[in-house]
């Protein structure tokens, strides 16, 4: 049951499972909790969750999801999962050191932990079985390299959540490799009109900017609007996908997208926990499993469109 | 001025019978009855905390009574809001919640009864007309306020009271209810208010007047109800009671005269009878 591409197969598995009146496996009904540092209503995390849910359906697992962007609340949510005596735990480590204590408790309670998405450097130290995800700095560097390769001279990196470590890492990673001038702009990610006006204002203020680098799918869409408002040929590049990113790639308004396959992070997380519990398997022997960065361009756009529309890429 | 009519045998405007009211654990009114007819001024007198304001608030629709019946024009009612009382023609001046401090004087004056502009079919208010009306209504009471756009909170206590009274008189339809209207007023303004009250009576309205001043009450009242600890301690038509008796009943036997005696001020009459009751004494 270890799959690395898409949810199609998982969906079929689930369809088969439900047709058979149960799941595809015969292990007992385990309970796995995933606690992320996501804000509410974030498209990226929705995809992660979808992957996890589909794997859980297939593996006869009760899947519990909770999220909170604040460190102390995320810690409390992990603690609540431990209180519920779950059989496995998936945790994001965006807040690094802060999770040390509570993951120690999970270990003491005998709950296997896999870390996902961010915090690769902490994963092993906190006793996690493995880490599945993308190192944000590496992803940033990949973006920077691609920017340099495309000859972008003056890049504006748009951070939509001020003080978010992962976003800072993406921007600074890109800055390190991009070569040309590089600036950062903070916008309010939950207020799109304001973000749009802010990016336009920045483009108006600095005519030298030739590239806008956004850090999420929805922000890419807003960035495109702002570029339109500025009436200048500015290229937009982005992290993560989204319907508008894909159509942008197709139309040529979006240069490239750095993808980390969020679906895979959720799906594999659950699936690896199931494998560990049922067969004591561990992929890569416990070494971090990278799901990105993957640079997607116009060439990939057509192939991706269907999956993005479905919400699994 | 019209000739005095001690008790105009008009139609009954409102009647309370056996009314009671409890606030939480405080029994403010108990078994109080009162009838008001057209062309009659009914005075309610009593000590502090006797329940006078509570009685008025029931009539005005601000509080609901817990016991007894309250009829307006013969029909039993329980008001849910002052609007209902106003709609039945009961206009009230309250002792403590008269005005909205931050609003200009003229807006306060017309609050709830705004005057529409003819040309706009009443949708748009006629601000200038309302300003002018307010100015003249106040001037009639001896208050000259060229700038009726001032927030009413910047007026003196008495001036505010005057606005509230002028408003009630201006819009008063059938019943005018006044809670200690003259308390904060000077001699002159008190006189004006009392004149208004009699004018309203003569126009056929019914008036309920609360006051601590037996002189003011006796000057205009047709009927006197005395409250004590929330209960009716006396109910007399004018014919049955004199000012002296009224003052004595109100003060529970004591009086300022007594006090001035105690204080031993030189100006005080050694006469044990109330100095205030002088007007009751037979003419020399």
């Amino acid at each position, binding site marked *: 049951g270890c799959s690395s591409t898409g949810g199609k197969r998982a969906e079929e598995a689930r369809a088969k499972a439900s047709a058979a009146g149960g799941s595809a496996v015969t292990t007992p009904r385990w309970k796995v909790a995933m606690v992320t540092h996501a804000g*509410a*209503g*974030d*498209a990226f995390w*929705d995809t992660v969750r979808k992957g996890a849910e589909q794997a859980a359906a297939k593996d006869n697992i009760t899947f519990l999801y909770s999220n909170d962007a604040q460190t102390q609340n995320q810690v409390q949510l992990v603690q609540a999962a431990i209180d519920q005596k779950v059989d496995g735990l998936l945790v994001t480590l965006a807040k690094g050191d802060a999770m040390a204590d509570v993951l120690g408790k999970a270990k003491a309670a005998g709950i296997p932990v896999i870390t996902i998405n961010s915090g690769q450097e902490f994963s092993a130290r906190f006793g996690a079985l493995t880490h599945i995800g993308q190192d944000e700095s590496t992803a940033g560097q990949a973006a920077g390299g691609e920017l340099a390769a495309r000859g972008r001279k003056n890049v504006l990196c748009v951070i939509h959540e001020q003080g978010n470590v992962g976003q800072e890492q993406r921007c600074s990673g890109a800055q390190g490799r991009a070569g040309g001038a590089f*600036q950062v*702009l*903070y916008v*309010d990610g*939950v*207020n*799109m*009109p*304001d973000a749009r*006006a*802010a990016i*336009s*204002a920045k483009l*108006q*203020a*600095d005519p030298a900017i030739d590239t806008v680098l956004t850090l999420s799918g929805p922000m890419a*869409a*807003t960035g495109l*609007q702002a570029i339109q*408002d500025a*009436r200048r040929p500015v290229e937009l590049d982005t992290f993560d996908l*989204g*319907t*508008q990113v894909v159509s942008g790639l197709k139309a040529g308004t979006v240069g490239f997208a750095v993808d980390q396959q969020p679906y895979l992070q959720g799906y594999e997380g659950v699936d690896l926990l199931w494998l560990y519990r049922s067969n004591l398997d561990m992929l890569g022997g416990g070494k971090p499993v990278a799901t990105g960065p993957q640079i997607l361009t116009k060439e990939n756009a057509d192939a991706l469109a269907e999956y993005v529309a479905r919400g699994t890429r | 001025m019209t000739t005095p009519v001690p008790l105009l045998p008009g139609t009954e405007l409102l009647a309370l019978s056996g009314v009671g009211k409890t606030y939480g654990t405080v029994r403010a009114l108990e078994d109080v009855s009162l009838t008001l007819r057209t062309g009659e001024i009914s005075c309610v007198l009593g000590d502090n905390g006797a329940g006078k304001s509570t009685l008025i608030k029931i009539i005005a629709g*601000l509080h609901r009574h817990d016991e007894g019946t309250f009829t307006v024009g013969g029909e039993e009612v329980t008001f849910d*809001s*002052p*609007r209902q009382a106003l709609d039945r023609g009961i206009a*009230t001046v*309250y002792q403590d*919640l*008269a*005005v*909205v*401090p*931050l*609003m200009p004087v003229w*807006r306060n004056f*017309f*609050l*709830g*009864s*705004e005057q529409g502009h003819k040309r706009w079919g009443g949708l*748009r*208010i006629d601000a200038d007309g309302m300003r002018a009306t307010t100015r003249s209504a106040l*001037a*009639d*009471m*001896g*208050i*000259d*306020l*060229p700038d009726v*756009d001032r927030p009413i909170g910047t007026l003196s206590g008495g001036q505010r009271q005057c606005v509230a009274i002028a408003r009630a008189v201006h819009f008063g339809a059938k019943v005018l209810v006044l809670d200690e209207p003259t308390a904060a007023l000077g001699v*002159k303004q008190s006189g004006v208010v009392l004149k208004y009250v009699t004018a309203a009576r003569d126009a056929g309205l019914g008036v309920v007047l609360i006051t601590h001043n037996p002189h003011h009450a006796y000057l205009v009242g047709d009927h006197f109800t005395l409250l004590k600890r929330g209960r009716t301690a006396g109910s007399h038509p004018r014919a049955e009671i004199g000012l002296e008796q009224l003052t004595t009943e109100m003060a529970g036997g004591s009086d300022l005269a007594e006090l001035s005696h105690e204080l031993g001020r030189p100006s005080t009459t050694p006469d044990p009878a109330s100095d205030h009751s002088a007007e009751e004494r037979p003419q020399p």
Partner: protein
Amino acid sequence: MSSPDVLVQDRERPAALRRLAGRPELGALIAAAAVFLVFAAVAEPFLRVPSLGTVLYAASTIGIMAVPVALLMIGGEFDLSAGVLVTTAALTSSMVSYQLTAVTWVGVLVSLAVTLAVGLFNGWMLARTRLPSFIVTLGTFLMLTGANLGVTKLVSGTVSTKPISDMEGFASCRWLFASEVTVGGLTIKATVWWWIGLLLVGSWVLLRTRFGNWVFAVGGDAAAARAVGVPVARTKTVLYLFVGFGAWVLGQHLLFSFDTVQSGEGVGNELIYIVAAVIGGCLITGGYGSVVGSALGALIFGMASKGIIYAQWNPDWFKFFLGAMLLLAALLNTWVKRRAERGPR
């Protein structure tokens, strides 16, 4: 007995000046001018014509909501759900049109019904329970935040709506809510017209109608207003409906200019609307304020937040500058008002 007998001397001052000095928005006007001058001095791009369009757009997206929020505040109440209600409006419109495969106007109308229903709920809860509006609308705020996400996931399967730009009626809706005209380099977005329209209507209603008088009264002293027969609960409910209407307009703009809507948006904007109203001279306790002032407040906010970008100040400190700006504007505002009240001595 009817001779005028009380001293009220008005010092000699031109009537127009005196009128202005007494208006709630005077301080905001001067603060807006000051903010404008600061950025005109330090940020060269700030004065360019296209920049003006950008600032106006930013101000209008705040101002559209600041008008009803200011009216509500004058009426003595808060609405913490105003921010997410905008998102609710956009989500509803999008999902209804998409799911029914109907002309987008259907979604637009259903969305109006929903926002008005939320306004009605707020007003009704307030009147029935007599809870403070802070609590009632905080409840609605949380519930709407949850429902935005929950319903969207339930209906669309993802946390954002599906694109509807290829649907019938989209073009005309877009024209109404999200078009733009460019005159001599200055781009005016549709939101600016909506803003001006709401401003005029709101201001007229507040100052020139009976309902406006009631708004001042229920905010200044609800008990006194009730005592003279003002329908307090109904007045407040209408104000909440008006907030719903504003949210509907802005929500449709959001939808028809961005095509898809994220369900998590809008949180926190309610505070910005309130700030605009307060900078514009509304008293937080109610009973005093102006609609025009709220527009000036929105303008100050728009100029400050975009001016900092034009001035290219260190972005790390963006919020710091914004806070300092806000405090200075508010300070200037009160200082001016106090000077004006004291008169020309």
